């Protein structure tokens, strides 16, 4: 009987800690995120009508607004917004960026930009091209837009050449933003 009791106690002692061990337990995970330079752009007005303010061959003018988000690297980072006329005016016999009817019939623009990324807009009037991208604004190292996005605008001027046949003409301009 004494041996039986001793054995029972031992069995109980061995089992109890296991039975009641750890009503709670923990584990951990390391959440890692690599944040790189990146950029995105949104043209506010999908259509940019050019209009003239008078009837005496004043140039056609218009405005394209855009917002952009950007993050440039701390070490030698940079960013830019450029544009290119990816589809020339059509139909024919009107204005043309690639082959204007008269030398000097240009589509030019000036730029503005503002926001947390401290953009530097193009400093002078730029002539749009179908061949190469032209500058809209540049960004320096370690620059960051606001979360909703910084803003910019391109103010267009199209020469009003009497040679243009009357009609409605459309071209496509592609804006590109990049960040390193």
């Amino acid at each position: 009987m004494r041996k039986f009791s001793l054995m029972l106690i031992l069995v109980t002692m061995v089992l109890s800690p296991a039975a009641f061990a750890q009503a709670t337990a923990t584990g951990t995970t390391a959440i890692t995120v690599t944040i790189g330079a990146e950029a995105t752009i949104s043209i506010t007005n999908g259509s940019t009508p050019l209009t003239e303010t008078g009837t005496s061959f004043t140039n056609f003018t218009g405005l394209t607004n855009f917002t952009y988000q950007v993050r440039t690297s701390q070490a030698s980072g940079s960013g830019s917004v450029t544009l290119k006329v990816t589809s020339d005016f059509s139909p024919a016999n009107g204005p043309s960026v690639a082959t204007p009817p008269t030398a000097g019939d240009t589509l030019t623009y000036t730029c503005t930009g503002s926001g947390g990324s401290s953009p530097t807009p193009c400093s002078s009037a730029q002539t749009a091209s179908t061949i190469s991208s032209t500058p809209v604004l540049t960004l320096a190292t370690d620059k960051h837009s606001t979360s909703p996005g910084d803003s910019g605008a391109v103010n267009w001027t199209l020469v009003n050449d009497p040679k243009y046949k009357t009609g409605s003409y459309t071209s496509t301009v592609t804006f590109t933003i990049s960040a390193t």
Partner: protein
Amino acid sequence: MKKSLVLLLFLALGLAPAAFAASTTSVTVAVGAEASLTVSAATPLTEAGNFANYTGATTFTYLIRTTPSTGTGSVTLKVTTDFAPTGGPSVATPATGDSLTYSCTATGTSTPAACSGPITALTTAYTNVLTVGADKHSTLAGDTGTVNWTLTNDPNYKVASYSSTVTFTVAAA
């Protein structure tokens, strides 16, 4: 020969009760509510596109047993080490509108009720991942759960890699 066979039979009859007699022990086990947890060690957050939010998933398995009638169980989490280095995301002091949020899924015989989300993770308190009711039991291999993370992709974060630690706790009563 006949005599010896009878003698052997008597011996066998006489010995048999003694051969099966034994003292007994009562083996008892007190089975209590308990729980354990295994969490995937690394949870990389990635983005699907420029300035899309960073997302990722943490998977975990848990073993659990809750008490009949009044028992409960839960898995919770807490950001025990905020993102480092500075200049990037922060759970404790996020920029306006920034957050680390999560939603949950869970399955198994413990019939867990997973958080619906999005829940904002905190450095100051544990937040819910799942709960289980009374008298619930996972499989021996463990029931499974997933926390799906979303981190705001704020342009203001400096370009770098950032890491934080999240502690998961399972409790059973």
